[in-house]
């Protein structure tokens, strides 16, 4: 189990710099001043140091200081309300619900008695960010431990209350029952008048899922009602008195430098503040339209050097790739073993193929947005983000402020998909607010979100393989240029293999995207595996089963094939079935699809998709199914038609009218099979379910047409002719 500060970041998280080593220290008297009396349990990052309040790790002479390395904490008030504090952010993955379930389970308390305070830099302890499928394996476990310690403390109090020993006590429905006919006692009654602080280590073994009663069930989204009524306030919905609306004047191209500027017209507009600071030009105005007019009235001339275009992208990535031995070149992620040369010698068939993956955009429906307010030298920012503490650190750097003077609040956010790890809008809104002397809201336009956020890296992948007539793989060499190393390890049994990720120079800003490079690497690998099976005229399912040893992979593959009816499915001209299997971040996925693919007309439509998924013990079956369905649907866009096009430092399709994302019309019949492994700790599930759809579709298109498409997106303008 890794602590916050020991997380190893994948190489392709280009947008992340070294996480701040900001320690959370809070005076324990502060807890009770803010929250009222009761019981507080702190979850420590370090080893177990369980202790009673007022003793132990006081690290200063000031007294009352609590241990600094805290992951989460929980408070049970004198009114019985359980409040849990975690720095994780809700971006639609429904962790507000799953984490609440974890706490409810340990306290035997109703869901409604528990409140989660999330992603607030002043209220919640430091958290590196909500990414990498870490919430479920790490934060959920920490909260369980914390809630379990609270339960033990409550049982102690109850034992004193009933004047009995703890063994005779029973917890149910947020109350503790003594033996006999005595009235049960509520949490609030027990914590009344108390100022207890306990602490517990957040690491250690997971609690077995076999006895779960609340976890493991389909609890509906905690604050779902606020979303269907329109009441929920996203960052872009926050309104402050006297607030202005911001707008940024963007450079004409990437890497452009400002040559000349005339802001005189905008400055004369009533109520408008213009800010010019280096390459940053922005305005603040009483309403969004005036801000837009003012920005349009600014005459800025930019110069930019020549830059590569999408038509030459893959040559460019290859030319600039770093080779083995260079920094960032040839990072071996797989278990390199044996000798490729020997492996190829032993093969009766050899294949070589190159696969490419375009840049794509996250397109969270809520674009980057922030509201910033200065009070003297203190700054408060509401923003949609997966990294509230990362945003705080960016703000501290931008304004030379101490982090304790910055308060970042992240309301449940309109999605992220790995795309909201950076705080651009927060910094810009704060700059404008400081210049205007009023609070400022800045909502990025869709075009800005496409252009100035970061993209999923494009990639080029060379695969070379050798195999025998019987279908044994003897050699596997795999080089990914630019998209990254996630999911690059070959899960098939191959004695001679080499898998490497090579950095390159990216013409566009790139960074994390749901499942990182696992999508690219699975696309190339699972397409290539299908090509090998086709060369041998073997069934793709049989070929995979022959070469897979991992029992969990075999099980998801079999489960997906069974639910799909793989054996009975007959591919014919124009209609084909395809499958793909993979593992990433401790969760296992197999996806089977049936496509309609007509070479004549170019029509391609995914009719049916089955995903089987195993991420250990299932915490919330309905929400997990929703994640698997949603990831499949989102992945369909990158598989078939999403691609960022660019020319000489400019995107040429930064609009939803030009950049196609999956819609209702693209919806296949989706079936999800969950393999609930109560014997295995739960892994995260927001990412892995996206990795199977692209190769499965590519393989199904091949089955239907004998067209082998090796570039994602596979069919941006429909199927290619011929």
């Amino acid at each position, binding site marked *: 189990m890794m602590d916050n500060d020991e997380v190893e970041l994948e190489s392709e998280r280009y947008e992340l710099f070294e996480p701040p080593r900001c320690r959370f220290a809070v005076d324990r008297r502060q807890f009770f001043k803010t929250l009222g009396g009761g019981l507080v349990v702190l979850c420590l990052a370090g080893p177990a140091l369980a202790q009673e309040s007022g003793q132990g790790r006081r690290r200063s002479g000031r007294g009352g200081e609590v241990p600094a390395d805290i992951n989460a904490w929980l408070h049970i008030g004198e009114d019985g309300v359980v409040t849990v504090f975690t720095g994780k952010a809700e971006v639609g993955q429904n962790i507000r619900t799953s984490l609440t379930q974890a706490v409810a389970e340990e306290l035997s308390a109703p869901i409604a008695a528990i409140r989660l305070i999330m992603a607030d830099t002043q209220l919640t302890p430091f958290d590196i960010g909500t990414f990498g499928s870490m919430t479920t394996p790490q934060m959920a476990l920490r909260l369980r431990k914390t809630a379990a310690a609270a339960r033990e403390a409550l049982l102690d109090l109850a034992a004193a209350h009933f004047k009995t020993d703890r063994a005779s006590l029973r917890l149910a429905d947020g109350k503790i029952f003594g033996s006999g006919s005595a009235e049960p006692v509520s949490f609030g009654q027990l914590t009344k008048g108390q100022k207890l602080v306990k602490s517990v280590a957040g690491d250690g073994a997971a609690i077995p899922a076999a006895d779960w009663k609340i976890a493991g069930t389909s609890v509906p989204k905690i604050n779902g009602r606020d979303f269907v009524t329109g009441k929920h306030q996203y960052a872009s919905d926050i309104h402050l008195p006297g607030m202005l609306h911001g707008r940024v004047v963007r450079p004409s191209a990437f890497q452009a430098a400002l040559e000349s500027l005339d802001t005189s017209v905008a400055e004369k507009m009533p109520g408008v503040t213009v800010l010019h600071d280096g390459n940053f030009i922005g305005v603040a105005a009483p309403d969004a339209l005036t801000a837009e007019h003012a920005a349009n009235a600014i005459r800025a001339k930019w110069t930019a050097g020549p830059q590569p275009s999408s038509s030459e992208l893959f040559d460019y990535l290859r030319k600039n790739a770093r080779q083995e031995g260079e920094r960032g070149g040839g990072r071996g992620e797989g278990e390199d073993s044996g000798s490729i040369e020997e492996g190829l010698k032993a093969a009766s068939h050899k294949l070589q193929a190159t696969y490419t993956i375009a840049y794509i955009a996250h397109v969270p429906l809520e674009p980057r947005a922030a509201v910033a307010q200065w009070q003297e030298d203190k700054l408060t920012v509401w923003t949609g983000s997966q990294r509230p503490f990362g945003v705080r650190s960016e703000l501290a750097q931008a304004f030379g402020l101490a982090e304790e003077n910055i308060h970042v609040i992240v309301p449940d*956010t309109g999605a992220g998909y790995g795309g909201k790890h950076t705080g651009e809008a927060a910094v810009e809104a704060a700059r404008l607010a400081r210049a205007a002397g009023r609070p400022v809201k800045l909502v990025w336009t869709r075009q800005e979100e496409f252009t100035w956020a970061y993209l999923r890296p494009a990639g080029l992948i060379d695969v070379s393989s050798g195999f025998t007539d019987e279908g044994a793989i003897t050699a596997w060499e795999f080089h990914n240029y630019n998209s990254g190393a996630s999911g690059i390890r070959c899960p098939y049994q191959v004695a001679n293999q080499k898998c490497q990720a090579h950095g390159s120079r990216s013409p566009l800003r790139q960074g994390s995207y749901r499942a990182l490079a696992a999508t690219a690497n699975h696309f190339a690998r699972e397409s290539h595996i299908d090509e090998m099976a086709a060369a041998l005229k073997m069934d793709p399912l049989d070929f995979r089963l022959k070469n897979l040893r991992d029992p969990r992979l075999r099980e998801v593959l079999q489960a997906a094939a069974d639910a799909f009816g793989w054996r009975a499915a007959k591919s014919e001209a124009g209609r084909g079935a395809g499958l793909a299997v993979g593992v990433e971040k401790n969760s296992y996925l197999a996806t089977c699809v049936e496509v309609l693919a007509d070479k004549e007309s170019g029509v391609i439509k995914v009719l049916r998709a089955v995903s089987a998924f195993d991420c250990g013990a299932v915490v919330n079956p309905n929400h997990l199914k929703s994640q698997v369905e*949603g990831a499949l649907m989102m992945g369909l866009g990158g598989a078939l038609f999403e691609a960022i096009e660019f020319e000489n430092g400019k995107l040429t399709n930064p609009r939803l009218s030009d950049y196609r994302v999956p819609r209702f019309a693209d919806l296949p019949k989706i079936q999800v099979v969950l393999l609930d492994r109560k014997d295995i700790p739960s892994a995260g599930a927001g990412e892995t379910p996206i990795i199977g759809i692209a190769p499965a579709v590519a393989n199904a298109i091949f089955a239907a047409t004998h067209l082998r498409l090796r570039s994602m997106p596979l069919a941006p303008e429909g199927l290619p002719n011929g």
Partner: protein
Amino acid sequence: MAKVTSLHVNGADASVDAEGERTLLSVLREDLNLTGPKYGCGEGQCGACTVLLDGAPIRSCQLPVGSVGQRKVLTIESLEQNGQLHPLQEAFLKHDAFQCGYCTGGMIMSALGLLQKRKSPSEPEILRFMNDNLCRCGVYQRIVAAIRDAAKTMAGGEK
């Protein structure tokens, strides 16, 4: 375009003081504090800003407020009545037909427009009608199920 001084929103007249060229979306959000309709693309492609205008779903990010006149505007905020959710809202909850929820208000308003026109639409009709509303989280299958469910409830006269 002339200034707009009044709008009919959610069953009542509302006083505003807005330049007519501003979008209906910005006036609803900035002036009337109705933030249920969302900005998603500004070009009528995503449907997050959907409201009903005289019963028909429209993209409020595309409509100058000066052209609304006294037509009746309904936003997602109007659907809950005396603490009672609309069958569509109940159905979206029942089917967990959202993840991040940013598209949900627009989805429900579009679906309401559909169900007011067609009492029990077929699945292809739902897919066609809803195609201009985007859910980037991709839970379209659940949204279709929710709309079908709500259609049944509404046709059954339960509400």
